[in-house]
């Protein structure tokens, strides 16, 4: 019995130690956040829409290279998760700024979220619908009577806009997983894929027939930018009410955009640095996959037509029009009425761009050229 007590005592001590370990490992974030600001810096929180990865490389570079700190901001980047809806977290007042796709945010605005797009970081859409090259699927019209994979949850609108425009019919929408196994196993005919993530997953997988990695020739790709039903994606959103009433917050918005743009320019000039920065921030994605993502994200931003972040009115109106006119498989629409005028503004991003241009920063990247990334097996 004595022995049992000793063991139990040791167990209790071990448990306590673990509990404490849990506390400290969780608590370090706070320490960093509070120690980082020496009283001078304005604390700012930025909510991402997914886990730490090169999709958000510009923000991590802005932080790592001290661009925000130079502008007087202490930005805490909060990675997303499965049940985190960034624009709703923002509307609830839990964070200061958030990254979200435009159609998803439009739906939240119609549901009552008082938020404003202050910088359209991604100019192009990264969403594809990928099928096997031998499937005969070349465009959205060919998706008729097919099993079509989609993630849903607001990620499906470009697909439905394309299906609607092509008058496709008889298709079945299949809920898609995080991986591409459904397409590889031919359980679905076409899978949704982001150029910077899931498409790379395909090219990192071994073709059991050849023993080599799958090649781009093995697949046929529907690019919504080419079809003409692309919608605006990653943008920085702010709280509308605070923009109007809180001068300091409006000033912070300009600085946040300005620092972020510098980070995105660093990613443009050195995608490897972006991949390294997100890996250092805790991403466990494979090294070649991460670099591929950094490079593909660059293609969505650069070259920039009006200066990175400037919201192009024509593209905005096109997204709104499609959001009004597209129904998904459940007959739901993104929005039913025009969004309010406060849904976007170029006031802050133009100010940031002006400041940067005055410093001689290249905000267009007119001579941007993507690099060649060789994907390794498993993205490693």
């Amino acid at each position, binding site marked *: 019995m004595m022995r049992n007590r000793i063991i*139990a005592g040791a167990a209790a001590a071990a448990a306590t130690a673990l509990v404490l370990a*849990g506390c400290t490992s969780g608590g370090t974030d706070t320490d960093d956040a509070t120690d980082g600001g020496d009283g001078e810096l304005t604390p700012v929180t930025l909510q991402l829409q997914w886990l730490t990865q090169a999709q958000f490389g510009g923000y991590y570079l802005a932080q790592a290279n001290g661009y925000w700190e130079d502008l007087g901001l202490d930005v805490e980047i909060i990675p997303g998760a499965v049940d985190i809806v960034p624009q709703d977290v923002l509307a*609830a007042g839990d964070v200061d700024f958030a990254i979200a796709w435009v159609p998803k945010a439009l739906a939240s605005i119609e549901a009552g979220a008082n938020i404003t797009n202050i910088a359209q970081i991604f100019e192009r859409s990264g969403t594809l619908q990928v099928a096997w090259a031998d499937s005969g699927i070349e465009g959205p019209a060919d998706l008729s009577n*097919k099993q079509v994979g989609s993630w849903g949850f607001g990620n499906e609108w470009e697909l439905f806009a394309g299906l609607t425009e092509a008058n496709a019919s008889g298709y079945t929408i299949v809920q898609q997983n995080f991986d591409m196994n459904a397409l*590889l196993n*031919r359980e679905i005919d076409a899978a949704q894929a982001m150029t910077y993530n899931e498409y790379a997953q395909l090219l990192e997988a071994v073709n059991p027939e050849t023993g080599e990695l799958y090649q781009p020739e093995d697949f046929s790709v529907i690019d919504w930018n080419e079809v003409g039903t692309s919608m605006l994606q990653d943008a920085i959103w702010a709280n509308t009410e605070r923009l109007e009433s809180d001068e300091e917050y409006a000033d912070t918005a300009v600085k946040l955009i300005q620092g972020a743009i510098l980070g995105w320019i660093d990613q443009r000039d050195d995608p490897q640095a972006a991949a390294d920065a997100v*890996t250092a921030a805790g991403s466990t994605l494979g090294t070649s996959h991460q670099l591929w993502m950094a490079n593909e994200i660059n293609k969505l931003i650069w070259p920039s037509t009006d200066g990175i972040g400037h919201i192009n009115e024509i593209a905005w109106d096109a997204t709104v029009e499609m959001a009004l006119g597209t129904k998904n498989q459940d007959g739901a629409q993104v929005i039913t009425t025009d969004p309010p005028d406060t849904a976007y503004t170029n006031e802050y991003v133009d100010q940031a761009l002006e400041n940067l241009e005055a410093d001689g920063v290249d905000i267009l990247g007119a001579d941007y050229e993507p690099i060649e990334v060789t994907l390794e097996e498993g993205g*490693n």
Partner: protein
Amino acid sequence: MTTTTPATRRARRWRAVLWGVLGLVALAAVWELYKLVGPADGWLIGAREGVTGSGIRLLPRTSDQAMPHTWEMLARAATPVTRAPGALPLGVVVLLAALVSLGIAALGWLVGVVVGFALALLMLGFRIAERAVLPFVILSQTVPLIALAPLIRNWGSRLEFGAFSWESWMSVVIIASYLAFFPVAVGALRGLQSPEAADLDLMRSYAAGWWTTLFRLRLPASVPFLIPALRLAAANAVVGTVVAEISVGFSGGIGRLILETAVAASSDPAKPWSPILGAVLLGLVAAGFVALLAAFLSPFRRQETAA
């Protein structure tokens, strides 16, 4: 009680360890055996020619993508997680994440046990409380976790007083404890109410008060009910922690690692298995802690021999 020498006791312990290891080996053998004999593309019934995705799958696929070899999983766990300089082996990353999750699950378990026990005492003390609270205790477990998780995160983030600010790990602890308190509340109440009327009458005849009856009679009597309840609570706390991490966005734990490595399922199929096995290990360690706790509680476990 039979007399045992330290030598036989030691032998018995080794035998237990041996059986545990054998169990693991057997599990791996079953996996490999099915992989060997099972059809590579699984078994479908009702599939129609030329219609993608038709039919109902009765047997899972055995391809390397769906079921990597056990040794491939081990080899993957031993290789660095990324090619970044200084990257730790995947297995080490998994163990570190499991340790973080274990700490959170332990906290959640502790909170759950305290709250569950307090509720049981309240329900024991006041009949009306039992009638009022018990239905809600049961109802609480029917709320789906995915509905609850964002709410807790949302409410938590509004809490702020002085230097205290809500951290995402606290939301995870709350969700873990929310799942953990239920078996304790129900089990402890059963246990505390388990003494027979004759025993309670005896205490009354000693003029023992409510508290004395509680400490001398009800608490020891509740131990046999409490131990399985604590074990269930530990399992629930682990599940709650893993799910909540995925749901509310807490990074550093095993749940987040499961989510992060899931994207490698097509191209690096052995990778996502590492954190899944880590989560299993986490559950085993948690169960082990409760077993130790049970050993500590067993002296209090007085059982009446039937006359």
